[in-house]
């Protein structure tokens, strides 16, 4: 199990625990974290799973593939901490990761 802290745009904090191997998007959807839709189910096709990764955790993630980077180009509020939640697989190395959800998804 990996612990994830989601901080919503309005400041609401949610600590969840999910099975290893699930994605950050699934962690959010399964725990009803608002603001992460995951419409395409993780196919990297919709960009409705945009999240901001806490600076302390950013370096611990595998680098983005070109597809993910491109899909993010049009995500609202994109910055250096932006990732697509569906492309990040949870593992013990990410236990405790802190993630912020954006204002809205497209």
């Amino acid at each position, binding site marked *: 199990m990996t612990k994830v802290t989601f901080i919503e745009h309005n400041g609401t904090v949610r600590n969840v625990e999910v099975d290893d191997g*699930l994605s950050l998007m*699934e962690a959010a*959807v*399964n725990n*009803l974290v*608002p603001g992460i*839709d995951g*419409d*395409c*189910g993780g*196919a*990297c*096709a*919709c*960009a409705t799973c945009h999240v901001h990764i806490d600076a302390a955790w950013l370096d611990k993630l595998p680098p983005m593939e070109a*597809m993910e980077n*491109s*899909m993010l*180009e*049009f995500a609202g509020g994109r910055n250096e901490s932006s990732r697509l939640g569906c492309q990040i697989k949870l593992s013990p190395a990410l236990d405790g990761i802190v993630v912020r959800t954006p204002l809205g998804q497209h």
Partner: protein
Amino acid sequence: MSRCPSASTLEAAPIVSETVIIVGAGQAAGQAVASLRQEGFDGRIVLVGAEPVLPYQRPPLSKAFLAGTLPLERLFLKPPAFYEQARVDTLLGVAVTELDATRRQVRLDDGRELAFDHLLLATGGRARRLDCPGADHPRLHYLRTVADVDGIRAALRPGARLVLIGGGYVGLEIAAVAAKLGLAVTVLEAAPTVLARVTCPAVARFFESVHRQAGVTIRCATTVTGIEGDASLARVVTGDGERIDADLVIAGIGLLPNVKLAQAAGLVCDNGIVVDEECRTSAPGIFSAGDCTQHPNAIYDSRLRLESVHNAIEQGKTAAAAMCGKARPYRQVPWFWSDQYDLKLQTAGLNRGYDQVVMRGSTDSRSFAAFYLRDGRLLAVDAVNRPVEFMVAKALIANRTVIAPERLADELIVAKDLAG
């Protein structure tokens, strides 16, 4: 207080608890349940689904789930706990057999009758069946549900011979998965190219060549006139009288919308359940969403029936909002994706009636976008490994943009700037 707050604030009398019944427990239904609660609906929600499983995503059925790399739990739209938390009565493995639109009641196949204030018909569709001799052959399958995949899986063994009837997206996705698993795959398509109804010839030829490179045999302009053989072997008979041996046959020849309930209840249907831009059917209190609807699309000034996750989700949201008295009219650029081998196809818009195709990039590079225009207006895009073009085009299509073909084709203009 059991109605949506916004709809009930003006009413003085105590509000009677309302019931929403959702018929069908698929993609649109799952979204509608979540959206009803998000919109503040506080009454009773009854979710009735003919399949014995919670709402799940179908796209992986021809992709990772078929390949066996994704377990069933990961297909669920929401985890089981959600339905408890959201106080949803789930009646799964139960079908609605009758709808009385006047008395606002449904009858279930176990004999029960349930009354509703609002009803959502989210009945989706079913695979079109082959209509030829041998259509009841035990080795012939269709792919729409998890149960269908369960019936197919055992036969997906390396070396087995698979004949796919129909070269649409789903058929080609199955071909890709099966070829990777080491099956000998043949695709039979009646039209002159695969994907004939949805893409231009250049894109269709591209996908044909990709599949051929992966060892798949593609035969276009080939009809199927029958299936022979006993339970141990299927023999697919083509229009030219040829017989192709198969251990497994899967037909993917389209979808028929599930409209029987609606039709019998007197709701207006026309290649789908006819709804307005708020997903209202012709009967008061009855809504419909997803693959089963025939709905207006303002971007194309026409009525459409779509088969896509995006449409099911958006109509699920719209219908839920409308039930809560909130107008959230459906105004969407249709979009869809397909994964085959290392290729991601994202398509936005509808190319119906196009008079020009502009290519950006070349099919040889396996990364290109085909833009469809009519009278200079961008109607649609097929983007292969070109996510930025896909996203830009979606915005341009929504704005009914007229754009110079030279600009679209010019790779010196970065894709992102095409919008500017």
